[in-house]
């Protein structure tokens, strides 16, 4: 039955799948699954089509460079060739043929990474028709992917770019225990999400602790209605996922052995369990909305129980209470400096949260979760740094910049590609008009893969979403028709 269905589907599958079928002998063909029925056949069914324009060779000179590796370089030079960083150092010689951009008196940092954004899935204008970020119909919707809700014309993207944001992680909302897959995007104008997808970035799975799931489902008279039911829900799902993974692994094992009778009936593919099983395989990274210290501590034990790791806690307003546990588990936290008190589980939020976590040797990140705050992440970071200094912590600008560059890159699994100014990395770079932690400083130049995406001095060249194009401007209120 399953094999027959596979043959029918093969006719309308992709060219690649058809080619694979014809390469195989007739016996194998009977057992072969259509691509969509085999979770391992194609783990990237909506592949990135992002292709940066050629960047050429250029050098940014004379700037104070905060590298994202904890270093500060005065009179620094950053050399970019073919979209990659070639060299970073003090007063480096400029290679022959390089275009020189004089950044004297200015600051250079890696492109800002916001690892918690809902741009595109809660697009502006925030009308009901654009509310695509929470599949609040069941507590486990691990089967949904945020990228299928992303509207690339959200005018929030270009505003974030003006704030220096070059990479974003777009997450589903936090109504569910398992909210679905997140997606990592380059902040570039695009016609579809594939043209924004960060090449090679791992998927994340959004999970949520605490008040939101229990409120949303308890309010509907179903589980979970309490924190203990939240935990039962996570554990039950991991048990299902382990079983699913085992069945598929057994099937692939038989397939590999090349038994004459074939591998037998394949398991039925399940999109929800696909995602959960890939977490257990270490291929999808857990991004866990969780505020309270006690709940984060429980989540870390659940991860141990089922053999996966939590890559980052998001919001994590009480992370400062468990810096030691976070350091031990290698879990990053992404938080705010000034948000607190909007609900009970955020009541203990403190401005020095990131600074204290950093001080304890764990990985701290400042995130936005907001289409306005995403434009001001350096200023939010400055507040966290200032409160840390108030407490007597020695936190330098070159440390704090890692909270919005290298650390979020690590937390979403792209630290080998971007997040620091090091040779070989993507040339995702911001040239700031001054110290990025000053309220008066603006992003002058924003490069993504060495391509100038935002030039403050050249407004007509700045990206503009389709939504904003052709709308009446102020002239309508000055027009002369009587």
């Amino acid at each position, binding site marked *: 039955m399953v094999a027959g269905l596979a043959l029918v589907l093969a006719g309308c599958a992709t060219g690649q799948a058809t080619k694979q079928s014809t390469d195989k002998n007739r016996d194998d063909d009977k057992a072969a699954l259509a691509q969509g029925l085999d979770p391992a056949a194609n783990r990237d069914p909506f592949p990135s089509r992002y292709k940066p324009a050629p960047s050429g060779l250029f050098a940014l000179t004379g700037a104070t460079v905060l590298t994202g590796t904890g270093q500060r370089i005065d009179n620094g030079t950053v050399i970019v060739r073919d979209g990659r960083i070639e060299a970073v150092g003090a007063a480096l010689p400029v290679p022959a043929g390089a275009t020189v951009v004089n950044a004297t008196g200015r600051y250079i940092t890696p492109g800002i990474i916001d690892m918690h954004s809902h741009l595109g899935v809660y697009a502006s204008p925030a009308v009901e028709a654009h509310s695509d970020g929470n599949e609040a119909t069941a507590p486990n919707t691990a089967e949904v992917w945020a990228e299928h809700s992303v509207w690339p014309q959200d005018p929030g993207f270009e505003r974030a770019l003006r704030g220096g944001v070059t990479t974003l992680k777009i997450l589903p909302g936090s109504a569910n225990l398992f909210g679905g897959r997140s997606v990592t995007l380059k902040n570039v104008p695009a016609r579809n999400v594939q043209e924004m997808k960060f090449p090679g970035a791992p998927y994340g799975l959004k999970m949520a602790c605490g008040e939101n799931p229990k409120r949303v489902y308890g309010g509907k008279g179903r589980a979970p209605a309490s924190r203990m039911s939240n935990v039962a829900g996570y554990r039950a799902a991991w048990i299902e996922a382990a079983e699913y993974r085992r069945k598929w692994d057994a099937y692939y094992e038989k397939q590999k052995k090349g038994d004459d009778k074939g591998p037998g009936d394949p398991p039925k593919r399940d999109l929800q369990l696909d995602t959960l099983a890939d977490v257990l395989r270490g291929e999808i990274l857990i991004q866990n909305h969780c505020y309270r210290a006690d709940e984060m501590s429980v989540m870390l034990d659940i991860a141990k129980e089922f053999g996966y790791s939590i890559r980052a806690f998001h919001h994590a307003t009480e992370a400062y209470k468990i810096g030691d546990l976070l350091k031990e588990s290698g879990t990053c936290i992404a938080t705010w400096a000034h948000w607190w008190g909007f609900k009970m589980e955020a009541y203990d939020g403190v401005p020095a949260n990131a600074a204290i976590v950093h001080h304890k040797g764990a990985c701290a990140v400042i995130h936005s979760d907001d289409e306005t705050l995403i434009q001001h992440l350096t200023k939010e970071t400055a507040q966290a740094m200032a409160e840390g200094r108030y407490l007597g912590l020695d936190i330098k600008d070159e440390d704090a910049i890692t909270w919005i560059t290298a650390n979020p890159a690590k937390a979403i699994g792209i630290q080998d590609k971007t997040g620091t100014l090091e040779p070989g990395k993507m040339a995702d770079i911001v040239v700031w008009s001054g110290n990025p932690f000053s309220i008066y400083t603006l992003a002058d130049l924003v490069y993504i893969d060495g391509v100038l995406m935002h030039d403050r001095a050249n407004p007509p060249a700045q990206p503009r979403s389709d939504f904003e194009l052709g709308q009446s401007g*102020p002239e309508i209120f000055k027009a002369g028709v009587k």
Partner: protein
Amino acid sequence: MNTVKKALLGSVFAALAFSGAALAQTIAIQGATLVTGTGVSLTGATIIIQNGIITAAGTGAAIPAGATLIDGTGKVITPGLFVSSSDLGIDEVSAVPQTNDSSAENKDFAVAYDPSYSVNPASTLLPLARAGGVTRAVVMPAAAFGDGAHTHEGDTAGHADEPMFHGQPAVIHTGAAPDILVRTRIGVALPFGESAASNAGGSRSLTVAILKAALEDARHYGANKAAFNQGGTRDYSLSRQDLEALLPVAKGEAPLFLAVSRAADIRLALRLAREEKLKLVLLGVEEGWIVADEIAAAGVPVVVKPTTNIPNRFEIQRARLENAALMEKAGVNVIITTTADGHYANQVRFEAGTAVAYGMPKDKALAAITSRPAALFGVPDAGVIAVGKPADLVLWGGDPLEPTVLAEKVFVNGTEQSLQTRARALEQRYLNR
């Protein structure tokens, strides 16, 4: 405190109110940059505070014997900051309704709703605000300044069933005291855009019709109170309490605080104010830059949040970061505030800083969070630094608009305040644990 009662009575500040041994001290801050809030900035200034009163503010002041000396080198003194539309004092945990009095939904007490009765001087939000240099706040009933945050988590309740009017704002100070009301019932707040249209029945035109009818009824009621009390008037669109509250606005004596966003709606508001002879203050005004000349010509003050630039509502599609600067340039009386959520009152200086980053002169941006709101909301003892006034000021570690700079001393109404907050108590508990 005496001062509160005096302010409530509208009397001029009397130094006698501060007599008492606990306050008998002299403080001299030397060598700081003094920003008076009215556009004057002095470097190397000395400020002397005796028993809570400013006795000298300028260069070359003689230091009285026995004064506590504070080195102000590299530091800046400003008046205490204003937050001009906030739920500070009436909201503790936003999503816990028992602690949140910022939203009231009783149609018989819509205009008359007075949030001052809900003010809690023990709120943990107040120490955080004052540690951030905020010494005064205008307590504005909910949604008069619509900018709901974090709606995707469902943390912010919808406002669909709210009454159209939002009651009568009050002014509080943030000092540690059992009574922090400075002024009450200072006008009436009313949203006037998309949310108001929704509350009114689905159209902006209904908002206008309801407002006009209400004003007409209030005036009629005011002229026929005796008849009303004997049941001898026609039916009114509002309750007696609401008519009473609206009357000073209908007579043009008290301001109507109108939350309005779209350029066309701003023009409509200005037209209504002309037709109805209203004393208007506009809140929000995100598209104000487009019709800035008309706002300036009408002499109507605006209360804005400069960082609002996301077109998340159709009515703020043309919101931009230059809004405050462009209105200032056109001659509008611009007052800067921050989000209405009082948890974030301390962000008001960064709102002003952002306005500067996008073109507003710095002295004007500082006036927009000090002297201008003090004048608009009728608090003459705050918002300025001048000899004879109570010290209502902040000593900053540097430029007050910079997020890397913190307040080092805060005086509210003549009394120096602790800068300890609940957040800092938590930080200190866990810092070395």
